[in-house]
């Protein structure tokens, strides 16, 4: 872990604090009001606000998780730093692709 990775991991963590809180609040709101999937999709469809919100969330989570997993691999597996970094980048890209697909499905499809 160097200062650049440290900064990215802490910055994305700080960014996700409000994002997680709003996300949980939205889940409570949706479930307590008995909203169906169709109700939710009708509100999110075409919304630039929700696309930006969850797009940012996905980007932050992908960066944060991949840096953390890189550290775990470097410290707890026999992989070299370079190989751990390559695997972590692959994981980050996978998370970003899966997250982007979900955001696309909720907002655009």
């Amino acid at each position: 872990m160097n200062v650049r990775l440290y900064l990215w991991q802490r910055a994305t963590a700080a960014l996700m604090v409000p994002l997680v809180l709003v996300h949980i609040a939205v889940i409570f709101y949706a479930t307590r009001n008995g909203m169906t999937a169709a109700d939710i999709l009708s509100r999110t469809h075409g919304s630039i606000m929700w696309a930006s919100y969850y797009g940012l969330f996905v980007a932050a989570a992908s960066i944060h998780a991949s840096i953390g997993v890189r550290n775990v691999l470097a410290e707890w597996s026999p992989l070299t730093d370079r190989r751990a970094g390559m695997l972590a980048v692959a994981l980050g890209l996978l998370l970003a692709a899966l997250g982007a697909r979900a955001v696309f499905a909720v907002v655009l499809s």
Partner: protein
Amino acid sequence: MLAELTVSLWRGGKDGRYETYHVPQRASQTVLDVVTFVQRHIDSTLSYRFACRVGVCGSCAMTVNGKPRWTCRTHVSKVAGSGHLEIGPLENLPVIKDLATDMEPFFEKWQKAQGVFAPSKTRHEEIEQIRPDSPARRAVDAAIECINCGVCYAACDTVRWNADYFGPAALTRAWTLLNDERDAGGTARLQAIAGSGGCHSCHSHQSCQELCPQALNPTAAISGLKRRTTAAYLKGEIKA
């Protein structure tokens, strides 16, 4: 008080084993007294390291019942409630023989962390006036009394997992120098500790501050280094 202690001592090198000895228990007995008794009265081939016997030199640290401790100031009554002592070499360092470890990696990392004072003046210039109550000097005072015993290094999980990690003692030394107004090596030091193996590898488990015999808090010093290196990186003074 028990009349006799059962003492398991590590014998041999990396692939050694614990051997059991019986040592008379005495009042105010230290763990170093126990080891010395075995060496002088039972087996003179036992190897271990000590010098001052009063907690100043930092030579006699060993693993005592699973935890690294300075043995000259650790009373048997404090750590051997059941009458049994298991004494091994420090963790995270190569074993030379029996209870003596090779401290070279520990001190090499001091060098890598730029733990050497870099003078900013010559002897012909006036001596720098340092106010004892200045925030920088207070930070130095809180961290300066390290005796290089290696207890924090042996206690550190991150050192165990990451062979490149400088460890708590080297980083605490770097912290004292960064806060020394007379030192001119600040930027090079920040650069050294901002890379792989530097302060950002610390997980803040705080084993170092829990076990430091001098009651120092290396975790706090490392937190200070994290803040300083991050600020320097954002200002473009150092590179990742």
